[in-house]
């Protein structure tokens, strides 16, 4: 459905000198700098797949998404989306895709969302009956039937985002791009939007690419994750495998009857945190058994758990480039 090969995007910007002297200097001379936002990214997406882009701010996720949807031209590389080159921007291509951006809105602020839907109906040339069907269906799924005639500016952020998504789906796109769709929303709204996307993807077999800050979005929705850091693709695969890549380390939390010296703990593994009688140790997976039995036989234990390293943390290690591309 989507094939991306060696996609690269550079852009230039100007350095602004500070102070009055700098402003005067700027009148005659501006220094231009080049930034590589996306560097040589390649991947492909199957029809009906739902994949997540993860990465810190400014990593190049949004830039990649914009190139896939035809908003930006790449500096080099090629992209094929359902047979189209996005930045040719053919009307036929535009009818097959849709993009929602969490920080931008396409709805008319002072009018009810239904008016904006109607505008999209006219723009995409959708028949009256198809339009009625899809709006009813989506409003039901998104649970916004009662809000259809409320002005957009009176809606909460979460409700507004649901409406943005609805507006983007009026023409039943084959591919949906979502850029931070849950940004700034309360947990309940995030949850609702996730549920909707899951059901919609299953029912319609729409191909979905989603970028997010929230691990929970990706964890809940995407079987596959692409991690981008500093413009480079650093990981492409299932999210849960990241932990394994990190060397299969586990966390042991132990609570003892009496406080113990950190020196004692260091014999079992790396001390992450120590707080009176509670301690968190990081231990390589193959040593977990030995460490557990050693602790149990040598110390007085009150409580004891073994957990995976949280995904957020694994990813942040990717960001810091502690782990290189496998």
């Amino acid at each position, binding site marked *: 459905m989507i094939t991306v090969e060696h996609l690269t995007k550079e*852009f*230039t910007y100007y350095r602004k000198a500070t102070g009055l002297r700098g402003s005067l200097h700027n009148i005659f001379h501006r220094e231009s700098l080049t*930034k590589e*936002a996306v560097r040589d990214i390649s991947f492909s997406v199957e029809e009906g797949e739902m994949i997540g882009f993860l990465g810190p701010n400014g990593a190049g996720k949004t*830039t990649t998404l*914009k190139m896939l*949807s*035809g*908003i*930006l*031209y790449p500096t080099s590389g090629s992209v094929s989306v359902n047979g189209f080159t996005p*930045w040719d*921007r053919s*009307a*036929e291509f*535009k*009818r097959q*895709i*849709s*993009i929602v*951006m969490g920080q*931008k*809105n*396409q709805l*008319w*602020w*002072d*009018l009810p969302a239904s*008016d904006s839907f*109607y*505008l999209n109906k*006219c*723009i*995409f*040339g959708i028949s009256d009956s198809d339009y009625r069907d899809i709006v009813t269906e989506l409003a039901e799924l998104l649970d916004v039937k009662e809000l259809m005639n409320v*002005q957009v500016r009176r809606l909460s952020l979460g409700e507004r985002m649901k409406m943005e998504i609805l507006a983007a789906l009026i023409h039943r796109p084959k591919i949906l791009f979502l850029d931070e769709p849950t940004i700034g929303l309360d947990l309940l709204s995030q949850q609702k939007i996730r549920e909707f996307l899951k059901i919609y993807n299953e029912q319609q077999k729409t191909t979905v690419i989603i970028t997010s800050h929230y691990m929970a979005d990706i964890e809940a929705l995407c079987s596959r994750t692409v991690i981008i850091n500093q413009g480079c693709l650093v990981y492409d695969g299932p999210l849960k495998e990241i932990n394994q890549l990190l060397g299969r380390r586990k966390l042991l939390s132990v609570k003892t009857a009496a406080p113990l010296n950190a020196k004692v703990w260091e014999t079992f593994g790396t001390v992450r945190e120590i707080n009176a009688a509670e301690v968190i140790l990081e231990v390589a997976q193959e040593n977990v058994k030995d460490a557990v039995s050693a602790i149990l036989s040598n110390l007085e234990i009150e409580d004891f758990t073994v957990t995976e390293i949280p995904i957020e943390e694994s990813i942040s290690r990717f960001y810091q480039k502690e782990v290189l591309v496998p």
Partner: protein
Amino acid sequence: MKKIVYYLKIMGVFAKYSLMSALEYRINFITGITVEMGWMLIKLLYVAIIYKAGTNIGILTPDHILLFVGIYLVLTGVYMLYSGNFSALPGMVQHGELDLYIVKPLSLQFLITMRRLDFAYLLPDLAAGIIMIVTGWRLAELPVGFLPIAGFLFYLLCGALLTYSLFLLPYLLSFWTVSVGGIADISNALWDFNNMPSLIYGKWFRRIGTYILPIFVITNFPGLFLMGELSPFACFWGAAAPLLFFALSRALWKFALKRYSSASS
């Protein structure tokens, strides 16, 4: 033809939604009307001065001048109807707000420049302008009939298209430079040359303003046609210039958009 119907339909939706939005803020709508009346006051001062002096400008009597300034007002109103989109363009470019419009399957230029229509500005200009045109037409005893009226309206329409094309050009610079407040000032100031019939300006100035930067074509040709003062070549130019400059604005728009898509992040 099907395409024209499509675009007209969407234009209709824009007009309806703009009006509905505007009426949400009634006070703003009314102050908008007063702003436009303030500008009109300045324009009418010029007419008042000419009436006070009581002199002709070339072949134009004060009554003709009334008609010409009326045309100027009507076309100002039409320009003001959509010019808010022009002035919003720099901000949209700067904040990357074209993104969500680029992915729509219709002309982006149409979508961006016709999205919001400001009726508060149109109404006073249109009302005063029509009164002045009708009054001037009658006082100057200009011909009334199918051909004069149809020709007059044709050149009025050409003028409207030329205004759109010509005044979009400076705003397109916003794809290259961040602040275009000065550009807005300068194009508005250029527009004001039409406050006086072009016959008041010197010969060379008039030629430049008719054939190179054809701002005089916009408001003078409908009136000159009515007076039978347009040469056959001028008749042709009056229809060709709008098409030429519209094509130019399309070309520059596409070029500018290429930059937007290449340079922004």
